[in-house]
Structure formats: C-alpha cells, structure tokens
C-alpha cells in the first residue's frame, strides 16, 4: 500500500477532522492516511508550546499520525549527524540558516516535493527567494526581525529610534549585543552606515566592504558592555537593568513589550531591517518524508501562520500577515504584511557570511567578542 495520500484526499480528511472537531464529536476519522505512524519534529524551544497546541493536535486528528515535538536550540544537527542510517532523530526539523545551509551542504536533508505543498501558493514568493528554497531543500520564512531593545527606565525623553542612535555617548559601555556574529555584525554594520550618513546600506556594506565593517566592529566593541547568549538571557538582563540598549530578536521582544510595558522598549527601524531566516527541512533518510511534507503543508497553512504571528513571530503567508497586522500595530511595524513590504524583505546577509564562515567566526570570537 502506498504511503503517499493524494493531495485532494489529505485536504478532504483535514476538512473532515476540522468538521468533526467543530461538531464536538470525539470519534476518530476513518481512513486517516498516516494512522499508526509517528512524526518527530524538532522546533526551537521558544516555539514548542505553540507547535504542540496549534499544529500537533489538529494534524494528529486529521492524519492519524502521532506527532512528537522535541524542543531544543542548536542540537538538532548534531543529533542528526549521530543518528543511525535510515533512522534519523527527526522526521522534520525547524532550523535557521546558520545551521541549515551547512547541513544541506553536508547532505543531511532531502529535497522537498514542492508540488505537494498546496499552501505554498499563499506565501509571498519573496520569502522563498533564497538558495535553500530555490533548490527545494527548505521552506523558508522570516521568523524574527532584528530590532533595538531598550530600557525605558534609562531611555529618558529620547529613546533610540535608529541604529545610529546606539553611537550616542550615553550608551557607551551600556550596549548589549547578541554574541553570535550573524546578527550582531550586521547590527554593527547598520550602526556604521548610519554613522557614515548612509543608513539603509548595511547589506551592501557587509557584501562589499566586510573588512571595513570588521574594522569598525573592532574599534567600537568597547561600547558593548554585555554580550547576550540567548533571547531569554537578554530579556533577563534587560529587566534587571543590566544594559541600556542593544539588538534583540523581535519574536522575544514583542511578547515582552506586552508583558512589561513600563520597562521594555522596542524600536524597529525601517532602514537596515534584517530577518532571521528559518526553514522547515526534512532529514535525508527519514522513512516519514511523506508525513513531513504533509506537515509542512499544514504548517504553512493560514491557521498555523495566524497562530505563529499572534505569538509574535514573522510569517510568510500574505493573507494571515494582513489579518494580524490589523490586530497588532507593533507586529505590523515589525514584520512584512503588505506585498510592498514583502517585496522589500531582506534576510541577514547569510550568503556573504558563508563565503568565509570559519574565518568570520574566528575574527569575531578572537578580536571582537573578547577584550583580550
């Protein structure tokens, strides 16, 4: 028996399950295509609850597959590398570009049959304008934007509004940046181009004048008093008053602003906005690739995209983005939600980084991150 359900059949079953749930019946749907199979999904820790509630339950009801969500940070690739052949630790992985591209190069992931992804039509093509998606290895989306976080208690009457404001003498030694270069080197590039009177050209600076950006970073590193290792730690330090301003992931900040409006300030400058590229990828030798493809289709569907956006994440679904933008002005100010904004979307300059990933890592760790 084939393990591949037809697209029409899968959607029909998804609809039946939704109808059954809506009528309050608990009877299992018959002939569910993935009955008895298990889909193990790796997601980032901060998002695991949302995927459990928003994806796992409905997908199990519709398809019969059991969904196991495993939350972590960078450990997915290591676990996949250590997995026995034919039995990968995961059937579906949510990873970011810094982890995903090297793993694709190492042959850890398989190509996805985009023809099976009926919901792909709802995504803006701009979010898929990258090598991982072009080669059909990953379904990418802008999960988080780099924004400026600041402590309202210390900001006074003139909170930072643009990257150039981080050069103010008052912030010297009181800045906090992420300790990973893919984000903070770009933040420093944005500060540099703003200081040079050319805001909005940070991508070009990283792509064409990386040496200049690195020199600026070496020179100005003393302005940074705190290098944060993770989003939750950044938030802890912000609430504890350990820094005045710095860069942050919007997905962390947008939730925090709602919970601690007196302390947490956020600015999302239009100029030099860059997005973290996350991607859904399928391990090369999983026996559940068909289930994983069906799962990706559900994950990029409007309902799941709405759930993600309402949790503060960026999404790729144009209609869902418009709905959430109307509900939440701060979300609208941060993420693309109109065709024009989707057209203008830029991820971090990963391709420029990957030209010399190891070299950049070394310079960052040895000459910028550490004082000695």
């Amino acid at each position, binding site marked *: 028996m084939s393990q591949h359900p037809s697209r029409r059949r899968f959607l029909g079953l998804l609809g039946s399950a939704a109808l059954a749930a809506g009528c309050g019946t608990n009877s299992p749907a018959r002939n569910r295509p993935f009955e008895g199979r298990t889909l193990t999904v790796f997601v980032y820790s901060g998002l695991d609850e949302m995927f459990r509630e928003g994806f796992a339950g409905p997908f199990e009801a519709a398809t019969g597959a059991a969904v196991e969500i495993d939350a972590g*940070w*960078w*450990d997915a*690739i*290591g676990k996949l*590398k250590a997995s026995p052949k034919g039995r990968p630790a995961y059937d579906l992985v949510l990873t970011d570009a*810094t*982890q995903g591209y*090297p*793993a694709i190069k190492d042959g850890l992931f398989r190509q996805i049959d985009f023809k099976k992804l009926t919901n792909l039509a709802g995504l803006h093509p701009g979010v898929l304008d990258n090598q991982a998606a072009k080669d059909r290895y990953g379904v990418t989306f802008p999960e988080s934007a780099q924004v400026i976080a600041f402590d309202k208690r210390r900001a006074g009457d003139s909170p930072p509004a643009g990257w150039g404001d981080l050069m103010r003498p008052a912030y010297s030694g009181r800045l906090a940046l992420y*300790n*990973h270069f893919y984000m903070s080197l770009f933040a420093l590039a944005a500060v540099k181009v703003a200081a040079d009177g050319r805001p909005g050209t940070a991508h070009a600076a990283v792509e064409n004048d990386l040496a200049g950006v690195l020199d600026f970073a070496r020179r100005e590193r003393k302005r940074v*008093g*705190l*290098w944060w*290792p993770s989003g939750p*730690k950044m938030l*802890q*330090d912000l609430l*504890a*008053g*350990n820094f005045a301003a710095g860069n942050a992931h919007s997905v962390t900040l947008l939730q925090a602003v709602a919970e601690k409006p007196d302390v947490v300030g956020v600015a999302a400058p239009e100029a030099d906005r860059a997005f973290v590229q996350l991607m859904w990828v399928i391990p090369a030798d999983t026996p559940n690739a068909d289930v994983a493809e069906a799962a990706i289709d559900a994950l990029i569907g409007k309902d799941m995209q709405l759930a993600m956006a309402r949790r503060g994440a960026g999404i790729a679904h144009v209609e869902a983005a418009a709905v959430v933008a109307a509900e939440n002005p701060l979300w609208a100010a941060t993420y693309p939600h109109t065709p024009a904004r989707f057209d203008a979307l830029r991820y971090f300059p990963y391709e420029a980084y990957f030209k010399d*990933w*190891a070299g950049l*890592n*070394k310079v960052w*760790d*040895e*000459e910028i*991150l*550490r*004082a*000695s």
Partner: protein
Amino acid sequence: MTTRSALFPWLLATPAVVLLAVMFVAPLALVVRVGFGESEWTIRAYADLFSGKLLLPVAAFTVALASAATILAVLIAYPVALAVHRLSPTPRALALAVVVLAKLANVFVVLYGVQLVLGRHGPVNAALTATGVVAEPLLLTQSAAGVLVAETYLLLPYAVLLLAPAFDRIDPALTAAARGLGATPWVAFFRVTLPLTLPDVVVAARLCLIWSLGAFVGPMMLGGPDEMTLSVLVQRLGLEANDYPRAAAASVVMLATVATCVGAFEVAARIALKAGGAARA
C-alpha cells in the same frame, strides 16, 4: 587464593567497567577521531586551534577559575563543616539539609537567583550604592567575579558534605590531650585537627577541582565572552559554529588540561599530606 575468589572482584567491577567502556571510552574514541576530520584524516582542527588567539587564554581562564573556586569552596566549607560537626544530632541534620538544599533545585533556578542577587537592582548593588562604595550600580554579572561566585556556590555543598564526616573520625581525646599539655585552642587546631582532616580536605579539593574544570552553566549564565571556559568553547565551536572537528579538538585539549591539573594537584597534595604527617609526628 582460588581462581574463583580471584575473579570475584573483577566480576563486581564488571558493570562499572562496561558502563565506562560504553559511555566514556567509546564516545571519547569517536571524539578523538572527529578531531582529525569528519571524513578524511587531517590535523587542520588542531592547527587552527593552536594557531588562534582563543585557546590559550580560554584554557588559562578555565584553570584559574577552577583553582580559585576550589580554594574558596574548601576554605568556606571547612569552618562550616567544623561548626556542623559540633552540633547535636537534630540541628546537625537540619544544618546539613540546609547545605544540600541548593542542590535540590535545578542549577538554572539557583543561578537565576544568583543573577538577581548580583543584578543592577539586586541587594549587592543596593548595599554598595547605599554605603557609597560605588556611585552607580556595577555590572556584577558578565564578569569573572560573578562566575567565581556562582561556581563557588555550586561547589560548596559537595565540599561541606565531604568534610563534615572528617571531624567525626578524630578521636576527641587527642584534642583534649593537646589542651592538657598546654596547647591553646588555636595550637591544638593547627597541630591536631587540621593535620588529621587534611586527607579529607584533599578529597574535597580534588572533587571540586575536577568539577570546576568542566564549568559550563556558571560561565554561560553569569559570564561574558572574556569568561569563556573550555566547556563553553566546545559548545560554541560545535553547536554554534558547526565546526565539529575544532569542537572535538578542543574537547581533547580540555581532557588534557584536566589530566594535567589533576596530576599537578596530586603532586601538591602528596607534598601537603607528607608535611601534615611530619607535623603530626
């Protein structure tokens, strides 16, 4: 001795040997292999590591932190253990429970508490600013001081638990005899109690040293890039930079560092114990 009785100790050790072989020797062999390249054989990872500017300062900080935390933990634990020893059974059990309390909570929870205490709005900064020692709150986290406080705090319960029974083993008549022969309480302590507890001090210090040479959570949560330890370096190279060969090479360097430090510690301990023995004699 029959063959059967000669084999008995080996049979008893078999579960531990199997566990060690499967869970330590085999993974270690794989780590060593990855250090020489994931597919081909090369020494590039080691060459990169040793030619870079990161390894030496990180290794030096790891050793300095471990040494300082070990010394501090034992110095703090010793009088605590002595005080616990002098308590009657019920308060003594309570005191030991208080010491162990920190270990019952998740290490992240404990260190989050330490972060709050050392934070800008925490009680330490409040006291420093209130007394005029500093004009504005200090950033005590993201500093070597913060990491040292955290590591010492994490080691302390082990040191106390190892040292507390040491005092029980000393015959009270020995101290009484010293006092009877005219020794002051301090002289009796230094000539009798301290030398007799020295072997347990060595055991406690050895455990603290080995533990703190692998410090990871403390430096991650309370340190910055300048407080990077070898464990943190391995994590950064492997999981963040995706450079598994360099991470494996750093792991091997870390093992060599631990072995060297423990070796140096054993030499120093032997000298100290010999001196302690001479003092007793």
